[in-house]
């Protein structure tokens, strides 16, 4: 039996709502806190509340804007609950084992942390054994399996890991394809002096293009040549001499790459003693002057 409230109006409301044992015709069954029976005033209040209630219900019934809203919200919640694994994957031994993460020795260094962490270790709140990287499928995780509230749908876990691994495999495939493309492209590009300018990755941008030849009149960088005028300083990328285009396909000397370190420098190709040109790697020695 509901305890009788101290407030008379609250008591009235509870009576109206049926929360106190009162029914029509039993007006005195549950007297008011003050011990009075339903007065005329109380009855008027009841009728007013009933009238207001009817009006509100009628108004709401006419307005169909919210129809189905609650169902939609609940339906979406149900759908999300159905899609999400009951517990974060990665903690379930049955789920992890097929994915191959269980034997820690099989996982290459670096893959396990990257692969396992996003699978949802953090929010789980498992015990230490369950969170241990090696013990992901160890006692801690296995103990959770089968316990009420521990979950871990195996299929969902397997799918997540599989997606990740397939992604890794796809990336590796792309890398291999890029390597093959570079391998095929590199020899053909060796004939193109312009293209070779970007080949040596270790050389600074000021490096001249291997395969190109210094234009007549080009002088070394002024910093490297005492007395050389600024006007005579050549472009840092050696220009190709059009007259030499018909030289041997393979030059006598070819600079494949230059690491100038902390210095700046250029690569020049100079006509040599014979038909081929020779290469000059010129480093600007600006320190210890």
């Amino acid at each position, binding site marked *: 039996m509901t305890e009788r409230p101290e407030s008379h109006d609250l008591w009235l409301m509870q009576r109206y709502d049926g929360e106190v044992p009162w029914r029509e015709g039993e007006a005195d069954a549950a007297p008011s806190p003050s011990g009075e029976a339903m007065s005329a005033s109380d009855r008027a209040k009841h009728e007013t509340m009933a009238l207001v209630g009817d009006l509100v219900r009628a108004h709401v019934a006419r307005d169909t804007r919210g129809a189905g809203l609650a169902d939609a919200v609940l339906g979406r919640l149900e759908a999300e609950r159905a899609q999400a694994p009951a517990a974060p994957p990665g903690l379930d031994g049955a789920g992890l084992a*097929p*994915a*191959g993460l269980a034997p820690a020795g*099989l996982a*290459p260094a670096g*893959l396990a942390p990257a692969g396992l962490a996003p699978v949802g270790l953090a929010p789980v709140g498992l015990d230490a054994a369950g969170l241990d990287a090696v013990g992901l499928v160890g006692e801690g995780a296995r103990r959770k399996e089968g316990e009420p509230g521990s979950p871990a749908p195996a299929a969902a876990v397997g799918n997540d*890991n599989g997606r990740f*691994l*397939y992604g890794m*495999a796809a990336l*590796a*495939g792309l*890398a*291999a394809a*890029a*390597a093959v493309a*570079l*391998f095929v492209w*590199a020899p053909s590009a*060796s004939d193109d002096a312009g293209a070779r300018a970007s*080949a*040596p990755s270790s050389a600074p941008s000021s490096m001249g293009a291997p395969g190109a030849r*210094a234009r*007549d*009149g*080009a*002088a*070394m960088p002024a910093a*490297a*040549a*005492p007395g*050389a005028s600024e006007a005579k300083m*050549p472009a840092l990328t050696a220009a190709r001499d059009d007259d030499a285009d018909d030289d041997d396909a*393979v030059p*006598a*000397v*070819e*600079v*494949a*790459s*230059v*690491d*100038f*370190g902390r*210095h700046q*420098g250029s690569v020049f190709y*100079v*006509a040599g*003693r014979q038909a*081929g040109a*020779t*290469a*000059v*790697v*010129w*480093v*600007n*020695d600006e320190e*210890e*002057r």
Partner: protein
Amino acid sequence: MKRFLMSRALVPMAGAAAIALTTPLAGAVPSHAGALAWGGGAGADPVDDAAKQAVGEVVVLYATNDGKGIDPSLGDMPQLQSPPFSAYDSYALLERGKVDLSPSGSMTLPDGGALSLRLESAADDRFTVVASITKKSGKKFLPGATVNAKRGEYFFLAGQRYKEGILVLGIRLVDKKR
């Protein structure tokens, strides 16, 4: 599990393939490691053979603008009259040296620094060599220049300050018995 292991195995295999394929990028001639990987392992290492037969011949020149002209003992080196060498009007021969390639060696320069040569690969009469210069202080002046040169053809490393001018190193790979 099997599917996973296959996927897992693919990653390092693909990575190794990528490395192996990109290794000979420096030129048409595969690098030392590349030569071994591509089939040099069965017989003798061609780099070792080449190193036994070839030697780096080095001429050390001192370039200045003191009006003395090109040292006649240098012989026929028309390159020195062309840019960028023509920025200096005088070239004196300071030293001739040989660097043993087995497959790497070095020689001391007049300023106390060192020139190092390392033979990377050899094919027919062409060599790929990595040249580097270290200053007396131990600092790397030229960490590395990878050059593919025909046997007997000079290439030059220049710019290192020395006294009132610079050092110019002419390097070529020749037969040892020469």
